[in-house]
């Protein structure tokens, strides 16, 4: 039964349906929370829409200009230092929530992007340049600079470990 439903609507459809069910349950158990969640969801969707447009644009451009595997020469096995630089700087300058970038990364992974570079990209998403002034305000210059440097360094450690534990191959 579950298998047939999954086949028909896909795993993503089942996932969305499960979340809707969770909302319905919360609606019955705690209607006040349910009611305050809906306008918040609306605000999130409005805030995230421009990021979705950017991600769509980036995917469109990569599909248009880098047909087949050519873009992945920057990011596949053997891409070396260039691959790390692209992944780390891409992670730092990309904006919006982390999960908005999953479709693009999934697409690039299918074309051969290494897990180590995907992990490094995702890790560096945590360095938010527009939010650095806020971090400085709360925790000071020294803390912000030290933390940011360690995050870049450990994004490489993270990538190497993810590569070893998922694809088993040597990181090049």
């Amino acid at each position, binding site marked *: 039964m579950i298998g047939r439903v999954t086949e028909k609507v896909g795993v993503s459809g089942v996932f969305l349906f499960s979340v809707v069910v969770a909302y319905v349950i919360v609606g019955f158990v705690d209607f006040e929370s349910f009611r305050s969640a809906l306008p918040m969801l609306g605000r999130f969707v409005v805030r995230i829409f421009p990021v979705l447009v950017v991600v769509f644009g980036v995917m469109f451009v990569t599909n248009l200009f880098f047909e087949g595997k050519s873009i992945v020469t920057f990011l596949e096995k053997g891409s070396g230092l260039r691959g790390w630089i692209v992944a780390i700087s891409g992670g730092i300058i990309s904006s919006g929530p982390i999960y908005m970038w*999953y479709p693009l990364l999934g697409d690039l992974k299918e074309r051969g992007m290494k897990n180590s570079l995907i992990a490094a990209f995702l890790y560096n998403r945590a360095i938010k340049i527009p939010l650095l002034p806020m971090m400085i305000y709360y925790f000071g210059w020294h803390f912000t600079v030290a933390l940011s440097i360690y995050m870049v360094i450990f994004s490489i450690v993270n990538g190497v470990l993810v590569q070893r534990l998922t694809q088993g191959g040597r990181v090049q």
Partner: protein
Amino acid sequence: MMEILNLEAQKQAFLKTTQAFRRSLPILLGVLMLLTLANTLIPKRLYGQIFTGNKLIDPFIGAVVGSVSGGNPLTSYIIGGELRYEGVSMLAITAFILAWVTVGLIQLPAEALMLGKRFAIVRNAISFCTAIVIAVFTVLTLGMV
């Protein structure tokens, strides 16, 4: 460069992108709904009440709480600032902020669906550990212990 002038190539690229997006949208919407629900159900004052004052256990608690939370990183800075004011150690606060932005239990199903189950689990587990390690390094470097 000729590719951009080719209408057929543009159409193909647009169709390919739209297809990939159509597959991802239910997952993205699901994650967004989950994050909203978590933000609504977890009261902000709860964060200050779960730290013990123990310098060894609190970084771990910080990383756990950061992992199950989600949303704008700015919220984690504000909560971190409040926790600091309440006397929670910088080790715990740093682990909390780092786990908030690098580990995502709420978006784990979406990450697993789009990037692979093994990848998502391994990446999040390693990010959890590195959140604590980086917190230790940062605090030791700045002499904040």
